């Protein structure tokens, strides 16, 4: 049975949907497929953009012959790829990025609140947050902003009722069942538990974003509390 759906995203994009839920296994399939696509990287592929359970391909039409219908050609190519290597069979070979975090204090003003909600000590929250391995499900919202999967459900904390007008760049935060990092200073409603000194996004670098879709992430506490 075919468990994916292919649709068009305007005139120069395809959107492959593998499912309709936020699910770590589904997201792993997205990145495995993306790795395969990147390995072949046809000349017309301008960008491949993972979502939680979807993958968009954007085309550079100038790379097609005049007689070719760009979207149809890309659709056929993708169908062949999916037939040759069915979803779920590709291996996951992502890299792991370690992020040093200063938890609590000025860097993480909401750590105590998160601990209180979870009925844990601040140390236990830090321990739980550092024990998990996360996956960059996708980057979006703002340049370099990672949506991470893998937060320990005990750390689920509702978003603040009043968002902060300014969250400092590098802040590590928990919003609902998700954890994330703010690459740029911006307004934000998530609970701030710590901060990293690493530059998550720098447009001047050859690789502007520290994190790429599909990367695994570990947080390393660089202080006690």
């Amino acid at each position, binding site marked *: 049975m075919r468990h994916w759906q292919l649709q068009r995203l305007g005139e120069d994009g395809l959107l492959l949907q593998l499912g309709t839920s936020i699910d770590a296994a589904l997201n792993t399939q997205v990145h495995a497929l993306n790795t395969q696509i990147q390995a072949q990287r046809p000349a017309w592929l301008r960008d491949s953009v993972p979502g939680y359970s979807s993958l968009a391909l954007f085309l550079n039409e100038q790379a097609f012959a005049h007689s070719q219908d760009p979207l149809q050609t890309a659709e056929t190519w993708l169908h062949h790829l999916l037939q040759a290597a069915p979803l779920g069979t590709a291996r996951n070979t992502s890299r792991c990025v370690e992020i040093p975090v200063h938890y609590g204090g000025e860097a993480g003003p909401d750590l105590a609140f998160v601990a209180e909600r979870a009925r844990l000590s601040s140390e236990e929250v830090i321990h739980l947050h550092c024990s998990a391995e996360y996956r960059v499900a996708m980057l*979006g919202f703002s340049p370099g902003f990672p949506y991470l999967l893998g937060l320990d459900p005990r750390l689920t904390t509702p978003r603040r009722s009043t968002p902060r007008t300014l969250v400092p760049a590098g802040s590590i935060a928990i919003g609902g069942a998700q954890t994330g990092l703010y690459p740029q200073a911006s307004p934000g409603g998530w609970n701030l538990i710590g901060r990293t000194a690493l530059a998550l996004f720098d447009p001047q670098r050859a690789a502007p974003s520290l994190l790429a879709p599909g990367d695994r992430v570990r947080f390393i506490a660089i202080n006690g509390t």
Partner: protein
Amino acid sequence: MSIDVLSPGLLTTVQDLGRFGWRHLGVGTSGALDAYAHTLANMLVGNPANAATLEITLTGPRLTFQHPCTIALCGAQIDAHCDGQIIPCARPVQLPAGSTLTLGACRTGARTYLAVAGGIDVPECMHSRSTDLRGGFGGLAGRALRAGDHIPLRPSSLLDLTAPCIAPWWIDDALDAAHSAPIHLLPSVDALASPGTLLATRWNISAQSNRQGLRLQGPALQLVNNDERISAPVAPGTVQLPPDGQPIVLLADAQTHGGYPCIGHVIRADRQRLAQLRPGDTFHFAAVTPQQARQAWQAQQHMLARLQLAIHARREAMTC
């Protein structure tokens, strides 16, 4: 060489044709919203289509040109004066060193493009000179112009003149489509409860619109399936439907992913016209097939190619 910004206008940004290939990092495309007018302005001053121009929104800046420059204004008709003299749109104009160009209100449309021969010479950032307002990079310091800014230009070999020299010819920079023509869209898989309403409605442009999206006002639309969607990639042109039933058409600065249902995509050929809609303007949608969308795009590219030939011939014959 540079242009001094005396006053910035409402929202004036440096834009080229956009920043491609970075959506997987959450980086939007940016770029001139009306790529057609941007391209024509560049052609009039002899630039390649991707040279950076200034995108002027509704109210223009006041600018002093330190050196003699050839400029052109395309897109929305705008009141333009240079030291007391009226500067017409859609043709090349040579300005003497020290000229102050005062751009007033856009009289038709919402965005005018100011091209300068040689292009706006800000450094490329991630392969583009476009301003990414949300990311805060590209263009001039990653933001809209401010008073006191100096916009870098390429050195030009133009000899100084004593007064502006206005080409005696001009081009028709308006798109073929009538102002009342529908905005065409490719319907999407998210089905509407009463699909006729989307096409039958005259949509009103909300004042909340910006370079990220046009917010539309009209009867609230409903979906057949109201299950919550999870964030998935979107693109400029995508028409989203938030829970309030008022569609949003995503423009060049839109986020790379969206969690709202997607009810269609505005075709590329008509996004130039979207860029020129002002708060309070109205329009209606019409559905097209992918083939019709492609034909409309090719027709627009052919029109640009024809204008390029005409402009080239006239520029060759220019005397001042």
